[in-house]
Every structure is written in structure tokens, then in C-alpha cells.
């Protein structure tokens, strides 16, 4: 279980003052829960994820993970305690192969079959990608999907995905949604936190957290929250582009 207690994060402004990005925020994310954090740009969503992972340090407040105060712990310590983080804009590594990155994520040498599975879950064919370098020769969408695969390989107790849909094409997004649904349905005690604006991901949530101006403005189930978020309700005829594509890539062969 993750508890955020009165978390505040401020940054200095050019004028010499401070700007509050996260404002006295308190939130509890129980185990075995699928939480989607949504809200307008600049509302503090990514900052909140970084504070949980330890990439940023809070100005004040506490972060409690499974009963331990991790507020002052390093990124490494939090990772080892079971927190994982999929970056919105993933790093690229010259010379590092996809296979190596997955091995590091898993903390062991992965059998090929496992690699195939993780990559297939993000819509990538492992035969074409495992020996490729995670450098600028990969497109933004490819790097993003590999980033998500590293979190799948790591399999943390609490996985935070920062806008996993950003930069991913519609076809792969379809596959990705399936993957999140599968993880959710597995119900193995692990928690997922996804920062997202996508209705189809939001619909998967047990709980939706609406973040605005660094504060939790509202929380609730999709049934309670969706009507207030301004999405077009499903089933109403409208622009076809707003509905999911029919091009399902869920059956990507893993031995291609």
C-alpha cells in the first residue's frame, strides 16, 4: 500500500519566489488496485509519479510504502522495495541491446521465451528487436513500447506508468490496452498506477484520481467519474476516429 501524506513540492521561480507544483496532497493507493491519475496538463501528474519513484524529492510531506517511510530513500532503494516507473520520455542507450535492458529490468538473464512474451505484450516482434540497440535508430513509439516492456519484465509490486499511450500508434495502443486489462484481471496483489488521458485506459480503472493544480480534486470509480470528465459516452455515433480501431494486433506471433 502506498500512502502520500501532505505531500508538497515546490520549485523556484525566475523571480526568486517559489511555485507549488504539488500542494499538500494526501492519497492512498491500496494493494491490488488499478488507479488512473488524470487531469489537465500542468496539474502535477508526472511530478507526483516522480516523487513516488524518488526522481524528485518533496519539499515537505511523507511517502509511506508498505508501512515504511521511504521519503528519504534513493531511487535504487525504492526500486528494490518494489516500485517501478515507466517514463513518459524514455532514455536511449548507445550500445545497449533491448535484450540487455530487459535482463537488467528483470534482475536476471531472461530466457528468450520470456523476452518474446514481454515484447509481444507491447506489440513488438522480439526477433526484430532483441538484438537492436536502444538508441536513436528506434522510433519514439518503439522506445516507448520497450520502456513499457521493461516494467513488465521487472514486475514490481507497484508499477507507475507515465502516459504510456503517448507516442504510440493506434494499433499498438489497442494491444497495450489489452495488456493493461490482462494485468488488471490477473489480480495478483500488485498495484498499477497509470497517468493517462485516454478514455479506454480510464475505463479499466478501479479508481480514478483527478489531479488539478497539484491537488486531488476528485476521486471515484469510472461510473462516477467518467460523466464529469467530459468524454463522449461509448456507443453514441460520432467521429469514427474517436472509437478504437478494428485493426487488432493482439495475436502477434512471437516466433516471427
Amino acid at each position, binding site marked *: 500500500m502506498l500512502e502520500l501524506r501532505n505531500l508538497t513540492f515546490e520549485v523556484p521561480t525566475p523571480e526568486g519566489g517559489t511555485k507549488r507544483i504539488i500542494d499538500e496532497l494526501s492519497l492512498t493507493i491500496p494493494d491490488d488496485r488499478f488507479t488512473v491519475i488524470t487531469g489537465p496538463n500542468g496539474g502535477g501528474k508526472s511530478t507526483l509519479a516522480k516523487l513516488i519513484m524518488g526522481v524528485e524529492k518533496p519539499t515537505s510531506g511523507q511517502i509511506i510504502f508498505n508501512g515504511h517511510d521511504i521519503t528519504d530513500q534513493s531511487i*535504487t532503494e525504492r526500486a528494490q522495495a518494489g516500485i517501478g516507473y515507466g517514463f513518459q520520455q524514455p532514455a536511449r542507450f548507445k550500445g*545497449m541491446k533491448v535484450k540487455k535492458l530487459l535482463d*537488467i529490468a528483470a534482475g536476471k538473464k531472461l530466457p528468450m521465451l520470456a523476452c518474446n512474451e514481454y515484447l509481444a505484450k507491447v506489440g513488438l516482434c522480439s526477433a526484430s528487436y532483441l538484438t537492436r540497440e536502444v538508441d536513436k535508430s528506434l522510433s519514439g513509439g518503439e522506445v516507448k513500447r520497450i520502456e513499457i516492456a521493461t516494467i513488465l519484465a521487472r514486475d514490481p509490486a507497484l508499477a507507475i506508468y507515465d502516459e504510456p499511450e503517448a507516442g504510440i500508434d493506434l494499433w499498438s495502443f489497442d494491444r497495450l490496452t489489452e495488456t493493461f486489462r490482462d494485468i488488471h484481471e490477473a489480480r495478483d496483489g500488485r498495484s498499477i498506477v497509470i497517468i493517462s488521458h485516454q478514455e479506454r485506459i480510464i475505463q479499466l480503472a478501479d479508481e480514478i484520481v483527478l489531479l488539478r493544480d497539484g491537488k486531488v480534486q476528485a476521486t471515484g470509480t469510472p461510473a462516477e467519474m467518467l460523466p464529469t470528465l467530459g468524454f463522449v459516452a461509448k456507443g453514441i455515433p460520432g467521429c469514427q476516429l474517436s472509437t478504437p480501431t478494428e485493426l487488432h494486433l493482439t495475436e502477434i506471433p512471437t516466433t516471427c
Partner: protein
Amino acid sequence: MAVDLSPIDENLLAEIANIHGMPNGAFNIRRDGQLVERHSSANIEISTKTDNPGIDITIKPGTKGETVFIPVIVTQAGLKDVVYNSFYIGEDCDITIVAGCGIHNDSHAASEHDGIHSFFCGKNSRVRYVEKHYGEGEGTGERILNPVTNVEMEEGSSCEMELIQLRGVSSTVRDTNAVLHEDAKLVLTEKLLTHDDQTATSNMKIELVGKGSSVQVISRSVAQDNSVQIFNPLVIGEAECRGHVQCDAIIMGKAKVTAIPGIEAASEDAVLVHEAAIGKIAGDQIVKLMTLGLTEEEAEEEILEDFLG
């Protein structure tokens, strides 16, 4: 075999040529300026030069799938060893050459090895050349390696050269020169890691004189502590040709790296590109690996290992 190799010798040979004991096929092992053991094969003849210290390696036309090992080790302090090795590679060959020099110096006197290697690649031959330099030892004596590599590539030949120097060499000045004739293709990869007060200079001059010739120069280097590196490649295009020079350097501590990639075109059909980048390890790379459970030091080590891998 009546060859006496000490554990230090064996370790150096394993480091630079990945050989354990005596290799199979053609080889020539030189230690402290003297021949230790030599073996020619049916297709590869190794003979002592008559004009200069060194050897001639003559590879019969059509030789395929063979590997030649010519490692040099220096374990004697105060020694300056200069050697000239020439490779005459016949037409239609497909071979691998493994060279390299390892210096073990525990004393206060300098040890130096200057290897001057000349390659003559026959028509349509494929050559893979790996040269690894390595230094070790507790002494303050300098470990100096100044290799010169000259390559003449005939029509349709291709050559992949990998020049590696990772740790332990106090001072190096590397000179690499190549002339490429019609449709010849050269891929030159240089990997360098310097630390402490080491210095390394790499000069290259690649002349693309034949139509359809191409070169790709890839330099990856890491400069740590107070070390200084200068990378100075020049690609000259005198015909319809393609050249690409890419220098990437990671700088750490108080090190200094100078990259001066040069391209010179003397034909309107020459397509030459160079790119160079020097910078510290990107923070987002370290943070990503830390989120996967590595410590900052482990992350840094991993990034460098892959960068030079």
C-alpha cells in the same frame, strides 16, 4: 611444446587476443622483442623480414575461413620494441587477423611497443582485423603504445578493422592511413578508454580514390579522471564515394577530449558526412537504470560497458 609462458604472459595473451596457450592455425607470438613461437599454415606463410625487425604474413589467394594470430607482449621494463608487420592478402580471401599488444610493467622505467602494420588487401578479399591494446602492472613506469596502421585496398575488397584500447596504456599516438580503390569498403571502429593521467591521440587519413569506395569511421571513447584524448580523423573523397565519420565521446571527471573530424571532397560525386559529440553520461540514462534497481555506480558502469561494448 618447449615454449615457456609465464602466468603473466598467459594473462596478457588472453586479454589481447583471447587465446589460451598456443592457438591453432597460423600464429606468431612475440615477447620482449623476441620471437616466442611461430606457426605457418598451408595457406598462410609467416616469415621474418630481412630489412627491418618484423614479419611478412602472406596469405594465398582464395584462402577462406582462416584466422591468423600475431600478438605481442612486453613484460620487460625499459624496453622499446619497434616492429614492422606486413600482410599480403591475396585475391578472393576471407580471413580474420587478430593482433594486439599487452604490456605488463611493474617497474619505474617505461616500456614501449610501436607496431607498424601494413595491409595489402587483394581484389575482392574480405578481411576482419581486431587489434586490442592493454596495459597492466603496479609500477609508475609508463606503458606506451604507438601503433601505425597502413591499409591499401584493391578493387572490391572489404575490411572491417576494430582497434581497441581499454585501460592501462599511459600514452598512445595512433596513426591509421588507408587508400581505397574502386568499390573497396572499409569500416573502421575505434574504442578507447583512458583514465588517470593517460593521453591518447588518434590520427586517421582515409583516401577514397576509387569510384564506389566507401568508409565508415566509428569512434567511441571514454575519458576519465585527468586523461586527455585527441581524435583527428580525415576522410578525403577523390571520386564518386561515400564517407561517414562518427565520433562519440563520454567525458568524466577532469578529462579533456578534442574531436576534430575532417572531411575533404575533391569530386562533386563524393558524399562525405561527419558528426561528433562529446558529453557526460546522460542523467536520464542513470536514473532509468536506478529505477530498475541498480545503484548510481552500477548504472554508470553498465552504461560505459555498453557504450564501448
